[in-house]
Every structure is written in C-alpha cells, then in structure tokens.
C-alpha cells in the first residue's frame, strides 16, 4: 500500500448535499444547471455506444438510493457533537442481503435510510462493515421483505481499456436513477481521497460521475466492474472519474469474512530504484536489471527486525523485482507493493534480499503500520482531547490539521515527518496545545498556543492518556516543557481546580476529556420501516 500525502485536487464524489438538491428541485420551473441536464449536448459529443439498449439488465431491481444523516466531529470544539448534515448516495444489492456502497457515503452517519425504485417506502438501514482505507462499506436493511424483490449483482473482472461501461446512481439533477456511459480510460494506482493517504488500484472512466453517484455500480455485460467513488471537480479536469475496481472490492469482501475488517497491510519501508550502473557494481549486483534498494525501514512496521537500510530486495514471493520496482503479476507489470496489497493481516510474504553481497531470504508477517494512520482522515470516532485550565490539548492528525490549518513550521514538520523521521518513537502521539479558553488563570498563556507538549515535571509525555493521567495528579505545580527553545508553561493545580467549573460552564464544555476513540453512536438497531 503506497501512502501519499493529502491531495487537494481529487474530491470524493460524496453524497450530493441536500442543499444542492434544494437548489435544483426536480419539479422546479427553474432551468436545471447545464451540467446536470441529462440531455442532448453531452450525447452530441460522445458517440452513443453500439450495443443492446439495456446491456446490463434492469438495474433498478438492484440499485438503492441511500439517504444519510451524518454528524461531522468538530475538532475545534471537540466536546460538541458536531454539525448535522444530510446527503444522498447510491448502493447496490449483492449476495447475502447486503448492500454495497462507498465508505464516504455512510461515514459519520447517525441515521441511514434506503429507498428503491417503485417502492414508496423508506427503509432504515445499518452499517455492517466499513473500510475507510479503500472507501467501501456494506449496509443492510432488516425489513423482512426488502430483499425479496431485489436482484443481487455479481462482480466481474477488470474491464479492458476503451471498453464501454455504464454508471448508475442518483446524481444531482433529478430524483430518479440516472445512467451515464463512457469508456475505460486508464487503469492505475490512485490516491483514495476518503482517507487521503491510501493508494490502490483504480479505474478511470469517461462516464459522467457527479455527487450522488458515489457507491453506485459501474456495469459491463451485466456484471459489476467497479464502484463509482471519486473524480476531479469540474474546475480542475473534466471527464475524469474513478471507480473502485473489483480486485479491491473482492479483497474487502474477503477481509470481512471473519466478521471483522482488518485494514490493508504494509511492508513499512521505502525503497529506491537501482538503475545506476556504478551503484549496482558497488553493491555487487549483476547487470540484470533486478533489485531495489531499501531506504527507510519504519521501526513500527513488520520489516523492522529483518530488513535494514541498504538491503537490496531481489524478489517478493518468488517474483523477481525489476530495478524500477515493478513485478509481474497476472501477466501485468505492477509496482512491487501490489503483491502486498492483495494480502491480509497475518499473511506472510517472502523477500529474497541481497545484503553484504550475500543472498538470503526472509519471511515477513504482514500487519498495518500504525504511524501512517495519523496522516489520514479518521471517521466514525469522536476526537480525542483533554481540557485542563482552559487549555485544549489534542493529538496531531490530519483532521486536526484540516480544522486548524496551522502555518507553524514545527507542527507541519512533526506531521509530515512523523513516519519518515520516526518521530512516533518519542511521541507516539504528538500532543498540541491547540486552543485556549480564556480565563484569569490562563490569561498570560496565549503565546504557548500551537506548542507541542514534550515533558511535564521532567516526565516525557508520549500520549494523550499520559497527559490526562499526569493532570490527574496534584503536585505543587505543573511545569510543562514544550518542544523547542521556549519558556516552560507553569500551572498551579489548586488554581486550576478552582477555575474548573467556571471554565466548563462559561464555554459549555460538556466533558473535560475524551480519551477513547470509541464509535460515537451505532446506527439505530430497530429496523422499522418508516
């Protein structure tokens, strides 16, 4: 699994926002916005594909419209439950009375309803599994007869380049199902913007995909070849949409067979190409275009014990690795991590390595490399924080960066280099003083805002839990050393205790801390028909 840092160009074609729908009500006499109008102009440019008129059968029998009420956590006031929003996405029925959709459709959901064609009812639904790292989710409806008249769809393979595909969903522009067609434009690794750190295989298609298409099936020959999920916003690039291909979908379905989603696994290393002849001779390698150089081995990753910087990887699971990092897999040349990408937590991978001009091989048991997680978005969890003396402490992660947009060089460095410089070894959580709720006890502390907590009373603070535990003690004073050359932040616990109630009351701080990344609320269990 390759990790990328956040990209701003791609947008997950999330659920069409309710506001957007209200602005273009289907019954309204106001003309629909040009891009949403499903009529002549587009077809005049793109030739109508040749083939049967309904090559994929009656998709209405498999497609559902998902309406979601979500509550997004507020990282700036983490004790609040967050703003409530509503949106619409698509989903489709697969075997086992399950409905597949995108993770971003159901993320942070508080209430889900499902509708289907020709049925006036709204059915309440619940999330079965959600995989934020590959933007897929399974939901179900427990209303007894819901699945009776639904036709489960079956998965196909990876469609050929230039072959025609059809995308189904509920994009803006109307209430009922919409179909668009296009061709397969590119098959490549892409950043999945939902987590904004994971990179997997994705298929680019020229079919129009818009907000509301998310989670809908992309079909070819009556089989699902992908799930529509993201694209570029119109002002960046047009006609560039992506779907999650079936290898990724199948992997997700396999992962959850044991009733639990384990996430993708990773080698936890970086590598460099070995294309320089002098470097190859120095390392004692043959002139055979094989091997890549191990650069950084993440200490928290599965390779930490058996692989080291300067090793050359010659083969993975017996497949030779070319000097540009590619391996052959199912007849295709793919990047080496794809071999790992298809495996699961606890699986092993065999690496043939070249170390000190000797060949050897090692077996690696694969696992998730946790330090990467702070660099991606998290969902369905309450933000963790501690409020003490009106000072708000929060662990650094991508959601926090998005909420505060800090310019501070040190914060950005700790975020960007958290893994590469192995900052997590000293600070598994980077605790920031993100905000100050003004009170007479902290009125002089404004300059400390944005600081990173290093030590309290000489003790290294490694996690938010340690911080909370330390603040629960009552020493004569707390001397908080921030990272870097700055003055210590000094607090008197007695004064803090005296100010506690008034600060909580004044700022309506419902709880002084949340240490658990627990799910906020489970979607309603009672599956009553509404």
């Amino acid at each position, binding site marked *: 699994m*390759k*990790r*990328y*840092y956040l990209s701003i160009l791609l947008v997950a074609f999330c659920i069409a926002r309710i506001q957007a729908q209200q602005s273009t009500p289907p019954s309204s006499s106001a003309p629909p916005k040009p891009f949403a109008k499903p009529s002549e102009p587009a077809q005049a440019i793109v030739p109508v594909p040749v083939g049967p008129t309904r090559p994929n059968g009656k998709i209405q029998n498999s497609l559902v419209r998902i309406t979601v009420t979500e509550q997004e956590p507020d990282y700036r006031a983490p004790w609040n439950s967050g703003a409530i929003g509503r949106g619409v996405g698509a989903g489709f029925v697969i075997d086992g009375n399950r409905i597949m959709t995108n993770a971003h459709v159901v993320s942070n959901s508080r209430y889900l309803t499902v509708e289907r064609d020709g049925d006036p009812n709204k059915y309440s639904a619940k999330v079965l599994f959600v995989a934020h790292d590959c933007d897929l989710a399974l939901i179900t409806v427990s209303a007894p007869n819901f699945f009776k008249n639904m036709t489960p769809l079956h998965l196909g393979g990876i469609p050929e380049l230039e072959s025609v595909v059809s995308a189904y969903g509920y994009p803006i522009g109307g209430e009922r199902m919409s179909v668009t067609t296009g061709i397969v434009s590119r098959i490549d690794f892409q950043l999945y913007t939902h987590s904004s750190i994971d990179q997997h295989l994705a298929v680019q298609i020229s079919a129009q995909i818009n907000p509301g298409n998310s989670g809908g099936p992309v079909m070819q020959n009556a089989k699902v070849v992908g799930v529509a999920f993201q694209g570029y916003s119109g002002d960046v690039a047009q006609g560039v949409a992506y779907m999650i291909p079936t290898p990724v979908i199948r992997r997700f379905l396999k992962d959850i067979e044991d009733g639990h989603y384990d996430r993708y696994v990773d080698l936890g*290393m*970086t*590598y*460099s*190409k*070995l*294309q*320089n*002849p*002098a*470097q190859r*001779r*120095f*390392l004692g390698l043959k002139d055979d275009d094989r091997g890549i*150089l191990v*650069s*950084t081995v993440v200490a928290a990753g599965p390779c930490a014990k058996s692989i080291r*910087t*300067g090793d050359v990887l010659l083969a993975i699971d017996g497949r030779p690795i070319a000097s540009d990092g590619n391996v052959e897999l199912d007849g295709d040349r793919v990047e080496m*991590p794809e071999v790992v990408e298809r495996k699961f937590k606890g699986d092993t991978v065999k690496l043939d390595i070249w170390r000190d001009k000797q060949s050897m091989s090692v077996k690696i048991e694969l696992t998730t490399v946790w330090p990467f997680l702070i660099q991606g978005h998290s969902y369905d969890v309450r933000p963790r924080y501690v409020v003490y003396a009106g000072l708000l402490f929060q662990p650094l992660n991508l959601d926090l960066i998005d909420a505060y947009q800090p310019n501070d*060089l*040190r914060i*950005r*460095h700790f975020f*960007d*280099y958290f893994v*590469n410089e192995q900052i997590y070894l000293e600070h598994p959580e980077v605790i920031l003083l993100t905000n100050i709720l003004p009170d007479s006890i902290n009125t*002089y*502390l404004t*300059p400390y805002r944005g600081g990173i907590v290093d030590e309290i009373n000489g003790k290294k603070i490694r996690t938010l839990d340690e911080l909370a535990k330390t603040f629960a003690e009552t020493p004569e*004073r707390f*001397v908080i050393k921030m990272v*870097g*050359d*700055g*003055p*210590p932040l*000094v*607090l*008197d616990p007695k004064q803090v205790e005296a100010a506690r109630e008034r600060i909580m009351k004044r700022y309506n701080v419902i709880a002084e801390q949340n240490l658990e990344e627990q799910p906020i609320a489970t979607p309603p269990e009672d599956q009553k028909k509404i």
Partner: protein
Amino acid sequence: MRRTAIIAFGLLATCTCVVAKKEPALPAATTKPKVVSLVRVNVTGQSYDYFRPWQKRAPFSKRALGAVLPQGRVLVTADLVANQNYVELERAESGEKIAANVQVIDYEANLALLEPVDKKFLDGITPLEVGLDTVVGDRLAAWQLEQTGALVVTEGLVTSVQMMHYPIEIGQFLAYRMSISMQYRDNSYTVPLVKNNKLAGLLLRYDSRSQVLDVIPGPIIMHFLKEAGSEQYRGFPSIGFSFFPTRDPQLRSFAGQTGKPAGVYVTSVDPNTSTVKAGLQVGDIVTAIGNNEIDQNGNYVDPLYGKIEFTNLLTAHAYPGDSVTVHVQRNGKPMQLNLTLEHRSTKDYVVPPYNLDQPPSYYVLGGMIFQELSRQYLKEWGANWVKDAPQRFVYLDRFQSELFPEGNHKIVIVSQVLPTNATVGYEELMYLTVTKVNGKEIKSLADLAAAVKQPIDGFIKIETEEDPKQIELDAAEVEAEAPKLQQNYGISSLQRLD
C-alpha cells in the same frame, strides 16, 4: 511510498529594479536650482544564481538617492548596493557623474557608505549632520528629487519608536514608524528623512497602501558611522540569547522571583558566544542591563523615547568589545554577570542568514551539485520562500540553534542532479542533506571536497539523511566525464570553495 518531489524553481527577480534611466532634460534655468544635500546614486549589479552557483544572474540597475555626509561620504541603504558591480554618483542639478566605491557596508543594519573616486565631486554640497533627537510626534520631511533636480518635500508624522526587524532578519533594531502620504519619484531606495535640516533617518520600507513608512533612525546611523570610523568595521553587538516576558506570575514563581515583577526569562543562550562565557543560563531572569531596569514586558525607560525594548541598550547604545553588567535573578538570587559584547558573524551560523557580495560555494561531482545550506539559497524561492522553498530546509534554518546546539558546522546539501553517464538513475534526486561521504562525516563543503578524493574500491559513496540514504558514483567515471559535463552544461568551474 514515494513522494513526488515538487520542482519549484522560483526564478522571480525579487528586486524592484528601476529600469527607466532618463537623463533629466533641463530647461534653460531661469532660477538657479536649490542645491540640496543629496546626490543621485545609480547602481548596476548582479546577484549570484544559487540554482546555478557557477554563474551570476542578468544585471539589474537601481536608481536612488544618497545623503551627503561630512568628509565626502554618501550614505545609502545596504539594500541598494548589495551585489553591486558598479556604483555611480550623479549631481542632481547638473547630471554630472562619477564612479564611487562602497567604503563600508552593514547588511544587518541596512546601511552603506559610498565614496566618490574623486572627493572634489561633492564640493559645494552642504553635508547633512545626523540628528538624534527625533521622538514620537515629530514631523519629518522625506526628501526626494524631481527629474529637474528640484527638491520634493513630503512631510509625515512619527507615530511610534520601536524595535523592528530589518530586511535581514537578525535581531531587531531601533526604528521610527511614520504615517506619510508619499509618492515615489524615480528612486525607490534610500529616501532621506530630515528634521531641522538634519538627517533624522533613511527609509527602511514603505507601504503605499497603509501609508506607513519605517525609518532607519539617526541613532542607528550614528552608531554605524562611528563604527565605520574604527580600523575594522565589526557591526552591531548581538544579543546572544532569547527571552520571554515574565508577565505570567506562574512563570515568575517557577523561576524563583518573589519580589516585584521585573525582567525577562532567558529561554536559550546562543552557542559559542560571549553570552555563554559570561555565564548566562536558561531560566535566568534578566532584570537590568547596567543601570537600566527591565520591566516584565522586556522594556526599559529610555530618557528620549520612554518605554522601549531593552535590546536597544545592546545595539544602538553599545559596541562590540564593550563590557556591560547584566543583572539576573537565578532561582530568586540576584547575581551580576559581566558580558563582553560581540558581533555574531554569519560564519558562526549553521545556516548563514545572508551571503551578499560573495559568490556561493559549491561542488559539482559527476553532475551532482553540492552546496552549503544558507538562507540566501532558500530566498531564491522568492518573497514567499518560507512556504515555497523545500520545507525540510526551511525547518532546518528556522530551528537551527535548537537542532544544532554545538553550532560549529554547515549543512551540505545535494541541491540537484544534472543527468550525465555517471548519474543515470539519480536525475530526480534533489534537496538531500549529506551525512557522510566515503565513510567520513561531512560538516562542510571542504570536508566533502576532501572526502571524495578518497574513494572506497573505486567508488564514491554518498550517504544522505533522506531517501535514498545512499548514492554511489564510479570515481574513475566521474573524473573521465568531468570535461564533458563542464562543456555540456556550460559550467565554468566544477567547484568553488571558500
């Protein structure tokens, strides 16, 4: 897990060059123009190209005013004459010109003294005395010249006197802030500000939108002139430590202060400085410099300006070599430290804050370009360099005193790799910091130049902090390819070491 490196060569010229250089077409003078204590200064120069460190950039030209001082000298800002090739003085009323030399330049205080090759050139011009008595509420006149040579006077009000950052951001210096509605004539640099026919200061910067003008004040100019008169110009003393106000009673109590609130809390002491030798420690509260008490905001009471930051005592009022008594409280106990002031040279920084009028050092090896990290290099990314330059380097620069407390080395970087037969496969590498070459630690470009001459079994092994961690070159190939590399990329010399 690769990050796509961002190629952002900021090639924007950062200077506002005044290109128009019209000769003033003087009409037949009916009245004799008033002779003012100003001359025009025309400068052409070239800055060094840190992206191609063997060459200079295209020439620029700037036109400005200089204030004529006694003894045939002309005062301008250092900004104006930095990286100059040729400086010329021009009589305002006649257009007569003469070449001039830069006698003394202080980039940190942004001041320079020029001297015409023939001092007689300034005959007949009444020199300006430096006035030191400007205070808040005074009106200063900005002197500019019309194309005809006639004086244009704009008046403004001094609204505050405070310590400010100068363009080279090392410490802070005294400055006046004025409110003035001024229009630039054909001289964007070095506008003199005058009070009672005395030079009150020189323009430091002007924001035409807010109509705020900052002034390099008389006392700083006087300090510069006095020091310029000494045998060797040393510059202004450096503070040598970082501090924080002690407004917070909790901090004062922690530092052991029980009496009345006073002084600043020492947060760090610069390595290898006289401040360390004087015994100043982190956690000390500096309560007075000499007889001047420092309050909990870091201000002392100046007889002229009232409350102003105490650093003024160590810059405008003191010279390198001076000894001052620093009163501190350590764990509540009063102590006195004797501090001998010194100027901190750019050479004493791990990442030098500026490098002007001097060529950058570099070393080209087989197509790999090695340089020492400097802020001058980072500034090649333009006005927004803090955001646009490679962030790791900006971080190293910003936190250098924290990251390298020992202080006595340089950071050698691979700035880019030119593709050659020796560097196949390395073309995309850039912005790497070098740790070792052939097993030897690299603490300067000179270290690198020495280490590459001792290959291991015919290979030069370069180790870097960042991925790929190691790079190998064939020493014989590098040597054989050198002439071709030079010719192919037009590199006049493959190395320049100090």
